[in-house]
């Protein structure tokens, strides 16, 4: 017990959620997307959120990333309660500390890969050079291509480069490989792995694909808006060894 607590102290929680509850009201129907969820994400760790559709994964991720606000409960980022702030503060939180990757890449079609990344570095406090960010995801050769000139996997890697170029404290990925075939998906996961390793970014990945769990430190299972169980991996397997 004592050992466990010492270990927890050593690894400071970057993000701490307490008693998160989210209730959506659609007309007269109340949907309880999250029920009293507690979760800590530690510096440099990589976690995966697994669970069936409607289990509350995305809702949790959106609240952690400052895209949505909980009905009850609090989220502390470096001991500051981000749920108590207004929209401008949340925008600032996203701008400075959070990187997002979605299933759909959401690149700006009118900007090249480099410019899509520069979009973020221009407003960030301590950004990487856009080209360096693209090199990390293995796209150093394609910086001047427009989205229409890139494959799906390449577009997703530009999205990852864009998410990490600001050197965020947290990288949140919602189904990053959902629209990709397995080979391309693994390349994308490798990129995320590289980012986590080289930059030490706390990373949370939502997926349907339990195979992904092998490359992470912890596996968080959700069901019916609650955390059902948390497994710790003794070792992380490299992404390139995953197969599905």
């Amino acid at each position, binding site marked *: 017990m004592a050992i466990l607590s010492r270990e927890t102290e050593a690894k400071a929680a970057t993000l701490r959620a307490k008693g998160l509850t989210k209730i959506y009201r659609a007309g007269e129907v109340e949907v309880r997307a999250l029920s009293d969820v507690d979760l800590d994400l530690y510096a440099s760790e990589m976690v995966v959120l697994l669970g069936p559709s409607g289990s509350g994964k995305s809702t949790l991720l959106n609240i952690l990333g400052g*895209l949505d606000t909980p009905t009850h409960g609090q989220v502390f980022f470096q001991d500051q309660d981000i749920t108590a702030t207004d929209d401008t503060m949340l*925008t600032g939180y*996203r*701008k400075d500390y*959070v990187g997002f990757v979605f299933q759909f890449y959401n690149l700006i079609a009118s900007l090249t890969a480099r410019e899509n990344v520069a*979009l973020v570095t221009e407003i*960030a406090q301590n950004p990487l050079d856009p080209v360096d960010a693209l090199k990390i995801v293995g796209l150093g050769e394609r910086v001047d291509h*427009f989205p229409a000139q890139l494959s799906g996997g390449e577009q997703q890697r530009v999205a990852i480069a864009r998410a990490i170029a600001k050197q965020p404290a947290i990288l949140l990925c919602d189904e990053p490989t959902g629209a990709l075939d397995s080979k391309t998906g693994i390349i994308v996961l490798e990129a995320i792995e590289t980012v986590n390793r080289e930059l030490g970014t706390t990373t949370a990945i939502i997926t349907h694909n339990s195979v992904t769990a092998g490359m992470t430190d912890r596996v968080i299972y959700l069901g019916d808006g609650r955390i059902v169980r948390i497994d710790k991996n003794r070792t992380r397997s490299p992404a390139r060894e995953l197969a599905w």
Partner: protein
Amino acid sequence: MVSGMIKALDIKLLRDLWRLKGQVISIGFVIASGVALLVMSLSTYEALRITSDAYYDRYRYGHVFAGAKRAPLHLEDRIRALEGVQTTQLRISMQAVLDIDGFTEPLMGRLVSIPEGRQPDLNQLVLRRGRLVEPGRPNEVIINESFANAHGLKLGDTIQAIINNNKRRLRIVGTAQSPEFIYVISPFALMPDKKRYGVLWLGRKAMEAAYDYDGAFNDLSLTVLRGTDTRQTIQALDAMLSPYGSVGAIDRRDHLSNWFVQNELTQNQASARILPTIFLLVAAFLTNTVLTRLIITERSEIGLMKAFGYSSREVGWHYAKFVIVITMLGVVFGWALGAMLGHLSTDSYARNLNLPMLIYRPSPLSFVIGAVVSLSVGLLATARAVSKAAALPPIVAMSPQEPPMFHGNSGVVQELMDTLDEPTRIIVRQITRWPFRAFATALGFAGAIAMMVLSLYFTDAVDEISRTHFGELQREDVALGFNDPQSSVVLTEIERLPGVLSAEPMRVVSVDLVSRHLKHRGTLHGISKGAKLTRIYDVRRGPVPVPAGGLVLTSRLAEKLDVRVGDQIEVRILEGRRPIENLTVADIYDSYIGMFAYLDIDVLNRMLKDRSVTQYVSASIDELQQEELLVELKNLPAVSTVALKSVAMSNFDQTIAETMMIFVGFFSAFSFALGFGVTYNAQRIALSERGRELATLRVLGFSHRDALYILLGETMVLVCLALPIGCLLGWLLTAVFVNAGGFQTELMRLPLVITPASYGLAIVVLLIASAASGLAMKRWVDRLDLISVLKTRE
């Protein structure tokens, strides 16, 4: 089964309409504006035409009018015997100075004889109050209603008139209107002046006695049977009356009041044809642009419907219904608005013109035209866009749209691009990627500016006319007229009057100007060579000197007679000894108003074998002594006309304000609606096309303001692009409008003058409209649902 599905589609239709209600309303508004303008203009024109025709008919307005110095009444039998003549009316009609207690400015009136105790056979009175004059009461008078109202005169009040050099006090027993005095215009005036010029109907016996016209007349009107050629009647009358000092007979067409009415109607007709056409075309263009882009955003839904098994035709019909509903909403609203405004504007005309009746029965034509034009344009746009979307295989239409291909730039362009920040780069690439679409949108903005310029142009035109006429041409402060020509000694006498600084002679005679088969019956102005007050003024060249012997004509008149400088014109003077002489056209000048012919007054006097004689005097006066002078003038019995320029000017402005500006006001309002509709739609569509990118930027940590910048920045660039195009287009539209027939009437020619202020205002209005719709966009951007936008497929 099928009907169930169709029903579901119709529900989708309603939901879509509701979802896009902002755009539906603003497109509907643009359409409504065009339709309303069309219905308003056409129905006003129709109503005025029908009303004036009915008025003329019911109150027996004459077909031919003639004047003479003094002709015997026994001519009536000979006149009646002329071919086709139906009814005749021989009257005594005189110009007189009036005096109303407490009103110092000069007043004038036209005295017209009527039979005692009954309506005249022609040119009957619409008795508004009181009764007709009774036999044996020579001091009873009926005055025209607008004059009575302008002075607050009631039955039983009295009014003084200088009749044949005697002051007479007349008692008002009735007020009336008459079809021959719809426009009551004094000599010299450009516009009717209700307050300073009145019509007084006196008993025939009273007029006979006062002017010593026993058994004589000086004014004639008659009606002819249908199908009679009035030209022959006029010729016969001229021949018959020439020994009696005829000034030439004229057709109803040239009768002053009706001439004004017809000019007004012609202008109305022209604006009813041209303005709404321009407006509808611009509105149609906008509708087209907006609907095309709207349907492109429906691409994946079209794919989905096709995947379900709907044919391209069914899909097309679905969207056609969508457009029909939007268009018809606009059309029906435009109908109602147009009919309402048409009634309002006809009503205001009727009140201004003192028409005793108002027949507002718009024919279905204008309504049908408005609907057909709007619908066909809308459907055409839809058909093109839908067929393009429906031509895609469903799977392609449904799958996320490939990111559009952008290309990098090279060289200087790239260097320039490098200096931009990313949001600005997005704006620039967006525009350069679809240059045609951007241009079309900019053209829409430009169209809105152009419509504003055109609507503001009217004020500029009127100002310019007023400036040249009153500032350059008619520079005297007061014009005096005498019942009979006076020896030029009178000039010296007038110069001696209090406050008179200088005076110049002028003579105006009725003439026929003939060139080959072309003839113009009008007036010839004789002015002195060194005239400084009443000048000949070319709107482009400036003052034109009075030539030694030849004629100077306005270009309108030269066109009518088809003559050039150096050509000969036969001048037939219709007064005095009625001399006929050939004169050379010495100069032709451009003017905005009227068909004038000028001649050296000495030459004119020589032609008439008169010694130095003047009939009018233009004078400049000391404003401080104006009151004193006016009192003095009232006591000069020889003076029959006193016209103050300041009064004429304000009256001109007021009349214009009352008639033209109603129309211009509505027109400007519609143009504003157009501007707002265009910008709102352009931005709303940009938002639906770009919502995803904007949401992405918000997720990445960009503020509302940054997102709004990208959305509105594109619009602002296009607006800036549109400003010069819009001004140019406005000028072009105005030029088309001015040169289109109908606006070049004999009374007035519209100058093509647009002030920088008008361009400026048009620009400001568009900027305001786009700012207003930008504010509406801000609400949308603030409410962007970041999560749902990003989690849904494109």
